[in-house]
């Protein structure tokens, strides 16, 4: 019992448990929804959601392929969260990053790592401006980022429409509303596969997930092992206290948004430099940036946890694609939003678990009945 108590007392364990409980309830809710729509095929639907992602090597490749940009947009949102900022502009930063990457790759004919650096730069610019507006003029970053999402969308459209060399029809294709196929324009700009595509027998597989994981590790180190990261987090916890302690909060605000922009920009680059997708001139904001928000929330902004939450969300999205046309794949979005809603509430449960464990640590060793309550309590709280 004592071991259970100590185990639950650890913050990370409590976080993980509360997320896990949310996920399980979300999936059960999804199953009930499937039952409500078509009770005969519901079992097929939930099987697809749960197992389609590992049903074949190609599906695994698809999961990892979609997870890579999600990790990065999730990191982007999470990084800003750590500094007390809500970066709802990941979508715009993602699009501008993709634009810079494609221009560098297709028109300037640079190799993929240069294009990726350009993507980072593009995203950084799109994060820096809202950051500066917040730091210098105290304009709410949520509003600025929303504005910059739309400005980014139209600016990218305008730029692509006026750059004939980047469009697919310049390279012999009939389409004028999308960017060129990288294989036709500049094969060097495609992210290398290192043989992973042959291993999983899927053209979607490349090293993008490895890049994303490496960046997540770097973000973790920066946030948790450096003075700079400590300052950023201090600003997030209490801005006034951190100013009092001599931290330059304005600089940190601008920097945090810039880094968040960098991360989302790389996400855009990593997705569109895969060589398997072309950027279409869009009328609405791309959802990849917005999907970074649930990824970050599910991971509770922890960079390492972001890798897993992004993979999970990508995994059930692949499952959702597989259950079409029997069911609408939007059921996955419903499941994710239920999970997020519950995890918002379960942050309290997590606090409760740790607090209960801590309180009992201080008190004298109590009868077994008392300690056994901790795990039970957590379950009750989560379901109520």
């Amino acid at each position, binding site marked *: 019992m004592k071991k259970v108590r100590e185990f639950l007392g650890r913050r990370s364990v409590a976080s993980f448990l509360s997320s896990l409980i949310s996920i399980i309830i979300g999936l059960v809710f999804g199953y009930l929804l499937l039952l409500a729509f078509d009770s005969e095929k519901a079992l097929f639907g939930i099987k697809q959601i749960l197992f389609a992602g590992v049903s074949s090597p190609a599906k695994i490749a698809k999961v990892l392929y979609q997870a890579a940009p999600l990790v990065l947009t999730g990191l982007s949102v999470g990084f800003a969260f750590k500094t007390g900022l809500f970066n709802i502009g990941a979508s715009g930063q993602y699009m501008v990053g993709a634009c810079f990457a494609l221009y560098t790759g297709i028109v300037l004919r640079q190799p993929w790592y240069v294009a990726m650096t350009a993507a980072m730069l593009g995203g950084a610019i799109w994060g820096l401006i809202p950051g500066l*507006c917040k730091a210098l003029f105290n304009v709410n970053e949520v509003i600025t980022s929303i*504005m910059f999402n739309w400005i980014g969308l*139209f600016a990218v459209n*305008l730029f692509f429409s006026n750059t004939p060399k980047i469009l697919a029809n310049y390279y012999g294709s009939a389409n004028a509303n999308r960017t060129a196929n990288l294989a036709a324009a500049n094969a060097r700009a495609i992210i290398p596969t290192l043989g992973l595509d042959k291993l999983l027998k899927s053209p979607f597989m490349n090293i993008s997930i490895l890049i994303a994981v490496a960046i997540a590790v770097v973000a973790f180190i920066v946030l948790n092992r450096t003075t700079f990261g400590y300052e950023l987090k201090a600003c997030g916890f209490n801005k006034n206290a951190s100013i009092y302690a001599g931290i330059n909060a304005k600089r940190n605000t601008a920097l945090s948004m810039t880094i968040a922009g960098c991360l989302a920009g790389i996400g855009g680059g990593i997705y569109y430099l895969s060589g398997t997708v072309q950027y279409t001139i869009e009328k609405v*904001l791309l959802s990849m940036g917005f999907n970074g928000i649930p990824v970050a929330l599910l991971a509770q902004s922890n960079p390492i946890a972001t890798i897993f939450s992004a993979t999970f969300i990508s995994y059930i999205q692949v499952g959702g694609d597989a259950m079409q046309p029997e069911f609408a794949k*939007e059921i*996955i979005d419903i499941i994710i939003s239920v999970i997020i809603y519950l995890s918002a509430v379960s942050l309290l449960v997590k606090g409760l678990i740790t607090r209960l464990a801590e309180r009992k640590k201080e008190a004298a060793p109590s009868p077994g009945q008392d300690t056994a309550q901790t795990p039970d309590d957590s379950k009750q709280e989560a379901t109520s």
Partner: protein
Amino acid sequence: MIILADIIAATVLFAVPLLLVALGGMFSERSGVINIALEGTMIIGALFGCLFLNFADQGGWGKLHPQLAMLAAVAVAAASGIVYSLLLAVASVSLKADQTIGGTALNMLAPAFAIVLTWAIQGQGKTTIYIPNWIRITKATLGMAAAAGREKGFWETLFFKSMFLTTPIAFLLLAAAIVVMYKTRFGLRLRSCGEHPQAADAVGINVYKMRYSGVLISGFLAGIGGIAFTIAAGSGFQSTVAGYGFLALAVMIFGNWKPWRILGAAVFFAFFKVIGAYSGSLAFLPDFKGVGSSQYIYQMLPYIVTMIVLIFSSKKSRAPKAEGIPYDKGKR
């Protein structure tokens, strides 16, 4: 001159949803709850409002009493908005959860739910709920004879080209919002909960009740705003409100959390939006020679102008002090 009437009419048409939803955001935030779920609430309001209109159309009785059916649809939209925002209220007031997280979840849930429900009702792949065409207010509605045979004049274009019941309702609600916010005891209490809930509690105001009221009023207004937007957009309900809920948030901040300024901000923003949409047919606008697809420049314009205005007006901008912080009686 006709084009001027066109622009004014379209500006009003698009200002209405922004105004309603931003007022909704104002009620919620003045009570201390950041309602980022406005977008989702709009979608839910539009979904049920449009479903009701379709139902009225298929029943045949909608056509007989078009404005009555429209009023009922607005009521349905408002009610569904209230129910939906209850989810936010429970999470952020009773359970003291993070308000942005709860709101984000609801924003994600709404379009997915709308698509799934539309499919379930209309059949697979049919993602658009079409709006019947009898909902428009015409001269005949008001008992006037339609001008037959000749071109529509300035005034007729202004008032009858795109007039829907939601427009007069919006202005009534604006007046009501001003009165409730500034002339009633309820309004004063609501505002105090957004500024200093502990002090409000100390003088006997039930902070939780006030915050529930604020969020539910915002759901009411956002629901109506949702159907107003769908009608204005004109091509039926496709499980989206094109980011208008987020724009309304910007309009609310731009309007400094005050009803009159929100009206001004909504009209301002809608005007630039309409200019963007009409840029092709307005001769006096520069057409940027040498630049292809210059419509994108005009589509960017409202956002850029808003950004600039926000930067210059930021000194005076003042958010409710306690917004975003869950109220906990036990905390000081």
